[in-house]
């Protein structure tokens, strides 16, 4: 589906080949010329500042050509919170080409290059990554990503905000391997029911999956504190003061919010990305990547454990300028290098061309990131309430084949049909039991049956939306918590789901999920960039796809048996 037909040629006669090329999906994508004066440029602009730093009396008094009296609030926050005053003058004196080589050279440890990075200014970091081509950027990501084991995140949403659909698709996404699941709403008032669907479905699919519901701050925090969701991500930050203020926040308000989440034991990451400032008309003449590096340093300064970046909802902007996708890979590298968890984009509809969608994905998928997609649409894109993703359910088999072709772990696996049907059905039945016990509008057997075999929201019977919204309100009014849901699941015959859910809730007591890049394994072991720190040090080291996991990824929907070539491997 697209907004317009392919561009009609003028009356000039064209060759048959040109007609074919004109009709190619890639020509439905938009491309624009750079305009560096306005910041419509990926990462190489004469209008970006030159690196500089000066320290007086233990305080940074000059940053990238500006003295403290000229600082905007981003400069101030970065100077006072992000950059190590003790090391910055030495770090800044290191030639950029040396630092770029350290990022690529396996003989330089992650620890050393991360330590050096603590003393660099935004312009210096830009100066370094400008020296790197996309393969070198991938080398850098491979070394600097914080968690050793890569993971992936899915969206589970519904065009009709149908909580049964969200539960069934969450269960399928979880069993396919996603470590985190994210939802959002068309009608915001549906949030409690959809967030419950996401959590319950997730725990049916695979115990320990973490879930979140993207909403405005107050409601998002409320659902988290009730234990209906497990983490938060949509806390946006921007690279210029003017756009930050347009977003009605400052680095200090966001830093305060970061602590608020941690104080409730809830994992949280910020969100930023190239292109947002120029999209909002206030890039202040800086390149997209320069501004994104300021966001990354702001996030680091706030002490938030991680960042979702990789242009995110503005991907059409860097995607349209020369070198834009290189810049997007570079922003993921910088987030990783600055020792933050990086949920690396690939999460918005990006191109009409399947070839281009794949090439945009490889700089994150091949080196591995903390979350390759943030997220992958675990529903058909037409049901994706984040406005569509770069990958959706139709791409599951392609993804699995690419993992097998390249021997790369993108966090997913092929799952047999009977297993998928079983978890979808169980998720819907668990929701049916919960709704009955909570006096919410009944979920019929017909709906459970539909959820088991459905693809999209079109395949479900329509629900009485007004009654559901009334039910959603009552869930909030009655103060229903995650623990209430655990109890109901336990007494209605879903004891294993209840155990999984309770185990997720217990994590808040330990605070273990607050550490960088933390996820939960199926055995409820927190895996963070501490006990699973990335130890890549060149060929033969770091995360290698091998053993049981590699055997798992060799399985596809159709593989001819070697033993009996007349049959397929099951």
């Amino acid at each position: 589906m697209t907004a317009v037909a392919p561009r009609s040629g003028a009356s000039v006669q064209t060759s048959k080949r040109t007609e074919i090329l004109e009709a190619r999906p890639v020509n439905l994508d938009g491309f624009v010329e750079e305009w560096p004066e306005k910041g419509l440029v990926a990462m190489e602009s004469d209008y970006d500042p030159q690196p500089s730093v000066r320290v007086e009396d233990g305080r940074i008094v000059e940053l990238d050509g500006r003295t403290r009296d000229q600082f905007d609030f981003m400069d101030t926050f970065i100077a006072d919170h992000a950059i190590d005053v003790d090391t910055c003058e030495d770090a800044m004196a290191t030639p950029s080409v040396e630092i770029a080589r350290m990022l690529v050279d396996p003989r330089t440890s992650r620890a050393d290059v991360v330590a050096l990075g603590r003393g660099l200014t935004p312009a210096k970091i830009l100066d370094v990554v400008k020296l790197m081509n996309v393969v070198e950027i991938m080398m850098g990501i491979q070394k600097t990503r914080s968690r050793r084991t890569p993971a992936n995140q899915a969206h589970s949403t519904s065009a009709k905000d149908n909580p049964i659909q969200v539960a069934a698709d969450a269960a399928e996404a979880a069993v396919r391997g996603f470590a985190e699941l994210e939802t959002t709403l068309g009608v915001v008032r549906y949030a409690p029911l959809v967030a419950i669907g996401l959590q319950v479905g997730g725990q049916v699919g695979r115990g320990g999956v973490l879930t979140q519901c993207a909403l405005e701050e107050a409601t998002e925090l409320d659902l988290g504190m009730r234990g209906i969701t497990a983490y938060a991500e949509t806390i946006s930050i921007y690279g210029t003061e003017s756009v930050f203020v347009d977003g009605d926040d400052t680095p200090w308000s966001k830093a305060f919010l970061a602590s608020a989440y941690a104080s409730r034991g809830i994992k949280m990451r910020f969100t930023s990305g190239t292109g947002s400032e120029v999209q909002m008309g206030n890039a202040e003449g800086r390149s997209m990547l320069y501004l994104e590096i300021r966001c990354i340093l702001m996030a680091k300064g706030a002490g938030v454990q991680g960042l979702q970046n990789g242009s995110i909802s503005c991907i059409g902007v860097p995607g349209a300028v020369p070198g834009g996708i290189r810049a997007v890979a570079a922003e993921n590298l910088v987030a990783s290098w600055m020792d933050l968890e990086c949920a690396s984009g690939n999460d918005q509809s990006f191109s009409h061309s399947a070839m281009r969608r794949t090439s945009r994905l490889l700089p994150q998928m091949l080196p591995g990131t903390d979350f390759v997609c943030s997220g992958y649409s675990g529903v058909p894109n037409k049901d994706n309430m984040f406005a569509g993703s770069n990958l959706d359910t139709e791409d599951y088999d392609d993804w699995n084949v690419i993992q097998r072709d390249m021997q790369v772990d993108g966090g997913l696996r092929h799952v047999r049909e009977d297993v998928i049907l079983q978890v979808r059905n169980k998720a819907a039945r668990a929701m049916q039991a919960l709704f009955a016990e909570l006096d919410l509008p009944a979920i019929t057997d017909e709906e459970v049956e539909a959820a088991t075999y459905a693809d999209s929201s079109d395949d479900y019977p329509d629900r009485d939306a007004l009654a559901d919204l009334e039910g959603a309100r009552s869930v909030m009014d009655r103060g229903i918590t995650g623990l209430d849901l655990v109890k109901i699941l336990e007494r209605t015959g879903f004891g294993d789901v209840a155990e999984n859910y309770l185990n997720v809730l217990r994590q808040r007591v330990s605070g273990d999920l607050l550490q960088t890049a933390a996820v939960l394994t199926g055995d409820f072991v927190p895996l963070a960039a501490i006990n699973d720190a990335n130890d890549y040090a060149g060929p033969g080291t770091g995360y290698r796809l091998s053993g049981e996991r590699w055997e798992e990824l060799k399985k596809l929907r159709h593989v001819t048996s070697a033993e009996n070539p007349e049959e397929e491997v099951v």
Partner: protein
Amino acid sequence: MTSTELTPADYPLSINRPELLHTPTGKALADITMDAVVSGEVTNEDLRVTPDTLVLQGRIAESVGRRQLGENCRRAAEMTAIPDDEVLAMYNALRPRASSAAQLEEIASRLENTFSAPTCAGLVREAAEVYAARNLLAEED
């Protein structure tokens, strides 16, 4: 507890050092069982992180060079004492042009005196100073 030495090997605390953890009502991690949930012994109040635990997690973060994350954990430890509504109200007060210098100072004092939250108070005072310089304070009535 506040002097406990921690190294990266202590992480995850829930597995390697459960004896250091407790709920806000004083229960051990092992007390959070399904039976205790069903019988009502464990309530939602138990499923919160304590300031002590946040301090421990902050120390682990600092032990692997994550100074800012450690500081965030310390601010969070202070914030556990602040009721939910008030945390959100303070966040809203920190938005651009939402508060006057006097209002921000009032919040900082309250953080310091009522909630014993000096690190958070410091963050608010710092914001007040920057907002004044950048014309981001509310107009005084």
